[in-house]
Every structure is written in structure tokens, then in C-alpha cells.
């Protein structure tokens, strides 16, 4: 029987980032993944003969410092930018925004000259706000109240950054964090089309509508992760993030086992002592769960090990997965009317107005799939031909809302999505060779993502910073000694690797310093 210092359950980018940093500082680390693929739901797999597509998230970006620090480029990471964002409009019309500010201003001027004038200042403000979040995301949140001396240092540094923005900008940024995205859009723009497109990131991944308070936080969150308007993936698909991290991890001596059998955490007298994987019991002085808090504390650890108040807090966590993911194998390039090839390398969005998004949510909040859903479409084969046989294409679709307990059938969703997109690509249905549909309940049953939430718990202000993953446990610790969390469930959430890096820093700095 081999022993490890550290066992990590799960293999998301956060788990692998933590593994890299811990192994690099001398720990013997074992990563256990019960599914077939490294990354779990963050993977790119064959779904039809010679067609590969992302299983869960279809965009994402590792934190730039992590990429540099772990030399991920040397380990095969090749970032693919999706630097265009197109809005599909009723009547087969569209417009495309890009990272090029001047070009984008011209495009917007075609819809609304007033909006075009305001766009640069708007981007400037949301960038200030998301830069502030970025700083907050790379530190460990305080858990003490009143804040301890160290907490005050952390908070003071953050508030110094805010103050550095200038008096007016400081309060503008503070307002953004708590606003509904509908209010934000109304304050800046008049064009319903532009407002709808820009508002999408504020509801992406949540079962919430754009009229709701605090939704702007979700927008800033995605921006802070480099996954806001202009997104990224990697050559080979989103799973390539995990492949590069896994290669780096192996170079630091990390052992990774897939198909390790079902997992549980061994606890004795309130201390985690190791892990049972399938029938094998493996000892370790430190156990880290990459899984979300609800799964960790109801399935991996038996709830009786925990205090009733803690169990209640776990029960009160909000997940509410509402995203369906569809992948289509296409026998030819799908011609979307008016969309250039360059734009096809980016993201296409169906969300022609803020009210359209809200109406989709109106249905979803009652548990049903809307007849007019919000869609995001990417054609990864535009930048990476290896994902499909020559001349053929993969089309990935993100669909909201598909609330986790809805009774909708996969065929219904597939037909609905094809129907909606046929308005822009009339022969689409005839191009489809194969399709794959994931509903939230499948993410839950196959990957243990509670209620199918792809971010380890709803991304919302009420579950952020010192409240994530649970109030009082923002420093990656848990009520069980030697058991830690490192996944997207923890601050800041997402697949940038920051949760994993923060967790590793907490462990390296405080509990794992070599004696």
C-alpha cells in the first residue's frame, strides 16, 4: 500500500492547479478521477465517430499567471481566442462585436450612434470593476469578523485599489456589483439588441433573469475570468486545459488515476485520514475535494460527521443548474446568413433583447424550458480542424434555460435548438449527422455536479467572497480537520484555476510548510 501526503478528489482545472503547486512544493500528490476522462465534465470527448466536442463548459481561460508559472505552453497549451461576439436577430439579421474597439464602435454606430459613443466608456468601467474583482479573486477572503489584523490588510489593499480608481470611479464600481444588469444596460444604452447581447454574460450559468438585482456581479465575474464577452478555449477543446495541467502535474510527480471507482472520504474522530476509491482504501495526511460542497458533505463525507448548523448551511446552498449543452456533428459548414468566417470563429448569441432573456427566465423559474431560449453557439472546428473529419464540423450550443428539475426530454431540446437556429441557417437540420444533449440532471448523475450546476454552486453575490463556498469557510478549510475544498465551489469559482491556486497557497503557507 502506497501512502500519499495529499489526495485530491476530482480533476478539474482547479484540482490539477492545486496538485501542481502542492507537488512542486514537495508533496506527494494523488489525483483521483472516477470518470474515464481527466477533467470530469471539463473535457473534450468523442461523441460520434471521429467527432470530438466539449462535455460541459464550452469556453474558459486559465489565469495568465498560472499558465506562466506552470509553463503550460510547454506542456501543450495553445489558447484559441474567440474574439468575436455576434448577435443573431429576428429576421435572420445579425451584428458582430470584436475586441477591436474602433471596428466595434462602427458596428454599433450602425444600430445606434449614441450607443457607439458610450461603448468605450462602458467597457472601461466594466474593466475597472472586473480588474478589481480579479484582485479580490487572487486572495483568500477573510473569515473573521470583526476582521483580524491579516484580514484588514487584505481588505485595505483591495479598498486601496478601489480608491486608486478615483472618487467617482470608486463608487461607480461599487454600484455595479449590486445592480441588475437590466438597470446597467438602461443606464448606458438605448439599443435593445446591444443591451440583450451584453446582458447575456450576467445570466450565463444561473437560473436568474436580467431584471434581478446583483446580476451585474455575474457579468463582472465572467469578465474577471477572461470569459466575459470575448472568450477563449484551447486547441483540442476545453479538455486541453486539463491535459496541459495534467502534463505539468505529472512533471512535478503527481500521480493521476482515472476510473478510480466511486469515492468516499475516510474520517476518524473528525480528522480526514484518507480516501476509499472503489474497494481500495488509501491513506493520506491531507484530503482535498474538488467537488462542490453539497456533494462533498452529503456523499463523500457522511453528514453525521458534521454539526447540524453546518449541514443546514450546506442544504441552503443554491445550485439550480439551468444550462443544457448540445453538440452537433455537421457534415458540412453551416452557413449563417450574414456572419463572416471570422465571426464564425467567435461566439454567436441568440438574445435579441433584455426582455427576451427575462421572458425565457419567466418560464424557467416555474420549472419549464422556454419556447424561445437564450442560445450561445460556437463552431470549434473553425479554429481546430482536428475535432472533426476533414470538411465536417462540430457545433456546440449552450442553452438556457433548462432548469434542473424540468421534465423536458433531450429530443425536445435538440429539435427546439435546431428550429431556433434554422432561422439563421436554413439547411441546418439537414447537416446534422449526430447530436449529443446534456441536461443538468445528467451532469449531476454522471459528474456529481449538484443540480447540474457547472460552476460548483450558483455564481451570485450571496455566494461570493467571504460567503463562498459557505460563510465562515472561505479559506478552503472545512469542519473536518485535514479536509479541504479546492474546486469551483470555493472562492472565486470558475475554471481559471484560481480556486485551486488559492487553496494550494493556503495549504502551503499555513499547514504544509516543511517541518
Amino acid at each position: 500500500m502506497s501512502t500519499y501526503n495529499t489526495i485530491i478528489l476530482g480533476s478539474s482545472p482547479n484540482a490539477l492547479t492545486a496538485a501542481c503547486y502542492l507537488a512542486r512544493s514537495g508533496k506527494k500528490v494523488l489525483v483521483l478521477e472516477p470518470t474515464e476522462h481527466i477533467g470530469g465534465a471539463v473535457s473534450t470527448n468523442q461523441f460520434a465517430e471521429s467527432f470530438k466536442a466539449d462535455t460541459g463548459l464550452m469556453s474558459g481561460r486559465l489565469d495568465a499567471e498560472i499558465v506562466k508559472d506552470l509553463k503550460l505552453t510547454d506542456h501543450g497549451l495553445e489558447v484559441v481566442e474567440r474574439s468575436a461576439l455576434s448577435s443573431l436577430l429576428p429576421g435572420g439579421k445579425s451584428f458582430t462585436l470584436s475586441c477591436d474597439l474602433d471596428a466595434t464602435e462602427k458596428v454599433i454606430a450602425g444600430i445606434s450612434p449614441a450607443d457607439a459613443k458610450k461603448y468605450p466608456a462602458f467597457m472601461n468601467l466594466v474593466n475597472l470593476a472586473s480588474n478589481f474583482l480579479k484582485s479580490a479573486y487572487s486572495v483568500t477572503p477573510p473569515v473573521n469578523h470583526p476582521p483580524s489584523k491579516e484580514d484588514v490588510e487584505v481588505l485595505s489593499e483591495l479598498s486601496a485599489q478601489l480608491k486608486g480608481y478615483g472618487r467617482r470611479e470608486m463608487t461607480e464600481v461599487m454600484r455595479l456589483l449590486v445592480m441588475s444588469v437590466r438597470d446597467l444596460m438602461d443606464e448606458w444604452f438605448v439599443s435593445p439588441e446591444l443591451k440583450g447581447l451584453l446582458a447575456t454574460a450576467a445570466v450565463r450559468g444561473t437560473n436568474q433573469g436580467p431584471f434581478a438585482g446583483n446580476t451585474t456581479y455575474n457579468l463582472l465575474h465572467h469578465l474577471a475570468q477572461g470569459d466575459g464577452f470575448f472568450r477563449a478555449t484551447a486547441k483540442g477543446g476545453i479538455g486541453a486545459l486539463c491535459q496541459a495541467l495534467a502534463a505539468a502535474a505529472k512533471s512535478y510527480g503527481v500521480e493521476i488515476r482515472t476510473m478510480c471507482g466511486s469515492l468516499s472520504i475516510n474520517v476518524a474522530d473528525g480528522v480526514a485520514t484518507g480516501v476509499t476509491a472503489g474497494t481500495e482504501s488509501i491513506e493520506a495526511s491531507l484530503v482535498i475535494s474538488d467537488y462542490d460542497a453539497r456533494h462533498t458533505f452529503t456523499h463523500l463525507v457522511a453528514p453525521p460527521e458534521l454539526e447540524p448548523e453546518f449541514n443546514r448551511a450546506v442544504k441552503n446552498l443554491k445550485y439550480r443548474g439551468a444550462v443544457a449543452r448540445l453538440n452537433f456533428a455537421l457534415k458540412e459548414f453551416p452557413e449563417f446568413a450574414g456572419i463572416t468566417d471570422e465571426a464564425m470563429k467567435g461566439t454567436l448569441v441568440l438574445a435579441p433583447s433584455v426582455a427576451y432573456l427575462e421572458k425565457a427566465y419567466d418560464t424557467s423559474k416555474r420549472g419549464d424550458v422556454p419556447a424561445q431560449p437564450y442560445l450561445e453557439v460556437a463552431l470549434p472546428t473553425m479554429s481546430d480542424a482536428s475535432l472533426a473529419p476533414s470538411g465536417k464540423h462540430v457545433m456546440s450550443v449552450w442553452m438556457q434555460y433548462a432548469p434542473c428539475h424540468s421534465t423536458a426530454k433531450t429530443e425536445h431540446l435538440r429539435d427546439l435548438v435546431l428550429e431556433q437556429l434554422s432561422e439563421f441557417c436554413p439547411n441546418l437540420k439537414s447537416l446534422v449527422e449526430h447530436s449529443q444533449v446534456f441536461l443538468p440532471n445528467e451532469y449531476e448523475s454522471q459528474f456529481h455536479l449538484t443540480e447540474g450546476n457547472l460552476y460548483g454552486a450558483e455564481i451570485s453575490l450571496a455566494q461570493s467572497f467571504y460567503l463562498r463556498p459557505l460563510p465562515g469557510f472561505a479559506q478552503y478549510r472545512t469542519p473536518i480537520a485535514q479536509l479541504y475544498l479546492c474546486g469551483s465551489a470555493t472562492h472565486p469559482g470558475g475554471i481559471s484555476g484560481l480556486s485551486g491556486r488559492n487553496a494550494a497557497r493556503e495549504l502551503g503557507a499555513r499547514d504544509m510548510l516543511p517541518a
Partner: protein
Amino acid sequence: MSKSTNNHYDVIVIGGGHNGLVNAAYLGKAGKKVLVLEQRHTVGGATITEEVYPGFKFLIASYLISLLRPDVIQELELVRHGLEIMPLESTFVPLTNGNYLADWPDHEATRHEIERHSKRDAEAYDEYARVMRRLAIALRPLLDMIPPDPTSVTPKDLETMARVRGVLNNMTRDDFHLLSRLMTMSAADFLDEWFEGTALKGTKCTSGIIGTFMGPRSPGTGYVLLHHYIGELDGTFRAWGFARGGTGALSQAIASAAREAGVEIKTNSPVAHVNIKNGEATGVTLENGDEYSASIVVSNADAKRTFLKLIEPKHLPDDFVSDINRFRIASPACKVNLALDGLPEFTSMPKGKEALLRGSIEIAPSIDYVEQAYDDAKYGGWSRKPFMDALIPSLLDPGMAPPGKHVMSLFVQYASSDLDGGWNEEKKAQFLGIVIDTLAEHAPNLKKILIHKHIMTPWDLERMIGLTSGHIFHGELALQQLFFLRPSPQWSNYRTPIKNMYMCGSSTHPGGCITGAPGRNAALAILEDRP
């Protein structure tokens, strides 16, 4: 055309709403020569009682008192000036299945009643009440505070920031975390964590949406819920009371205290604009051309009305004008008053429990009901089945209606101030019909006993009382416009970009409701500058 009046005042208060009156009374007591100019024939603003139909006294807008600051009652000696508040003793929630939920004056009785619906909820109820009370007590000091500017480094602002931190640091960690969550959550999510009973959650969630154009499932409503828990009556938290003579009697009591302090009150005196010379307020001009000069001008009108109508934009910084323009003020609330030839008979009200008619009657059988009411209205429409908070004032104060007759007050949501195609008399009548029909489903004799019906839509509240968009709080209680952001980031301390000009209405901290706090805090700010 314009006639200059000879009199010079230390202070002119534009508007005799309850906050304007409180402000004037405090300044009068401090020895200032104060003039209140009210556009209507009577003072009170949204806090008035009027005989719209002969013999019946209607609560035209506000109807209950809870958040009125105890300091205001004491310092202005409002009881001596005639204020008498009678606590409301019960809440009755008729349900659609013939059942009901009631909240009784007697704590044990309430527990039993909740237990009838859910044993678990009865257990949770006490703890919930304790927790909300603790949070409310912790936050209370902030209400009476002139908000600090977190971007400022003046010693005063730094000191106030430290006081704010002190208030938060006084809380236990668990309470601070709970407060952080409540402030950022939806009322529905918060209540779901505590209770399982549909009816209990339905009635409780309404505190989160009063005056607010959001549904109970929208984050942000958690704060509004807490806002309505901060009130107290004689030390009892979350208690609501009815003023003998209606809320208008409160305004009269404050006016009496103000007059006693030497304040002059002129009604029928709509202000057309604030006179400004070299960036300084010098007085006001009435719509009839009369001019009054003063060293200080205070506006009780809402921020939009004050800065977009009474002052020319050229006198204001661009940023400030854009802040006021973006201030959210779309309103979903209406007020209906009924003159009745008898009492409504609720089918679900148990025999022998008719005393429940003396309390609040809430048509809010579930969160889903209220959320649907919101969804119906949020794109520029109105609820097909509105939420209502009803009261029969004549049962508490027989003087409100002729003998044997009654008045019924209904606070109703949602009907959009931005109604598709705009409001008109026909649409008013239509919505009033919906309100009556909805209530009659629970009390079928309603139409038989109905003598007169009267509705104040957001359109009417704007035309009659001067509330922009009819907003009951002079602007949404959304997080982005609270505390040091209300109504504008650098101008939350009752001062304005115009020298000698101040604000004292509900567009300022701590916002709407009958609190007297904006009026009092503004007086403190003015006296800081001009002792």
C-alpha cells in the same frame, strides 16, 4: 410679473410632506425662521387622510406606521401634539382553498396557528423572529446617521466610516454573514431557508416587495424585507400601528409641533423653481410668480422633481444630472379606498374569529402568486391577480366612517407606472375592477356592500402628490441607491452641488416609509453647517 415678497427666511422648505414638516420643526426649534411651502391645499404629502367621499375618510396613500423614528416622536413631542398610535393586532391571509393563515396578538396562539399548517415552521418561527430582530437592532444606528462618503478623506467622513465599521463589527460573525447574505439574496430564497408553508412564505415575502418593482424571487428583495423589520412601536419590533384619524393625523401632529416652534406653513403654494445666483440658492419662485428669499433652501420633493424640474441643469454638474436621471423610480404600487355599507365577509374566516378583520388582511397566498403578479406587470402591464394588503380603519377608529359604515384601504401591487400606452381614466377603471374582483373572490359580499370606490394609480400619485412615477419611496430601495449612494454617490449627506441647498425627502437615506429620518438627519446636516 414676479412679485418679490418682503420677508426673508433663514430656511425655506419646499414641500410639506411628513419629512419636510419634521425638517422644519427641528430647524424651527433650533431658532431658525422657517417657511414651508406646500403645493396642495393640505400638508402631509403621501401621509394624508382625506374625505374623498362624504362622510368617509380615506387613507389616500400611506396607511400604517412602524418605522417612525422614536427620536422624532419624543423630540417633537408628537403625542402631546395629538398623535395616537393603535397597534395592529393580527394578520389574516385568506387562501384560495378555503383555508386561511392568521397571526394573532397572542404569541402562543400564533404558534398554534402556524403549527396547523406546519409543525416545523412553528419551531422555526420563533428563531426567525429573534434573528430578524437582532439584525434590525444591529442596523438601526445606521438609520439615524448622515451617511459618510467612502471616497472622502476628510476627518469627519473617516470618523463616520469608522462608526459604520463599528456598527458592523459589533455584530457576531454569524449575524454579519447572515446580514451579508440577506442583503444580497431574494426574499423568496431567504424564506425558503426557514419555512416550508406556502401561505406563511407568501405573506412573509410581501415585506420584501412593498413599493418595489421586483418579484420576491429577485435578489435585492432581501434588503427590502429587512427594511420593513427595522420599525418598532413602543419597543416592539416589526409592529405596525394605525394612527387615530389615519396617517394624515400624524402629519397634522408634526405640523402642529412645527408651528409651535415658529414655523410658517403656506399651503396652495407650488414652487416653480429654486432661485440660484452664482451657484448659490437664494430662495424660490412660486408658480404664481411670488418670490421668497432665504439663506437656505431645502427640498422635500423627490430627487428627480427637485433637480430635473425645479432647477435648471445648467446649475448642476453633468455627473450629478446623469446620476439623478438614472435614479430608478419606476413604481408598481396603487392605492384603493372603498366606502362600504357593512363589513366584508371572508369565506375562509372562521366563525367567531371576526376580530381578525381589525388587523391586516393580506391577499398573498403564496410566493408563486406574488411572483406571478410581478411577471404580469413587469413589461408594462398590471397583475391579473394583484397582491393586496388591506385594512379596515373604521374598525379601529369609528370616526373614519359614518355609523354602521366602513372604509377599507387596499395597498395594491403590481401596476406599472410605465403602463403600455400610458394610463388614462378607462385603464384606471379597468384595473380598479380587477382589484375589486380579486378581493370579491375572497369576500363575495363585497360588491353588495360597495358604496364608493377610489383608486390612486402611479399616474394619480404623481399628479396629485407630486411623486415622480408615483414612487412611494421617492425611488427604489435597490442596493445601488441606498445609504451613501442615495440619491447620488457623492451627495448622500443631504447636501447638494448647489450651495445652501439641501434635500430632506425620501430620495435620501434611509429612504421611504413614514420614518421622519430623512427630515431629521437633514436638519442635523443643516445645523452642522449653520449652527
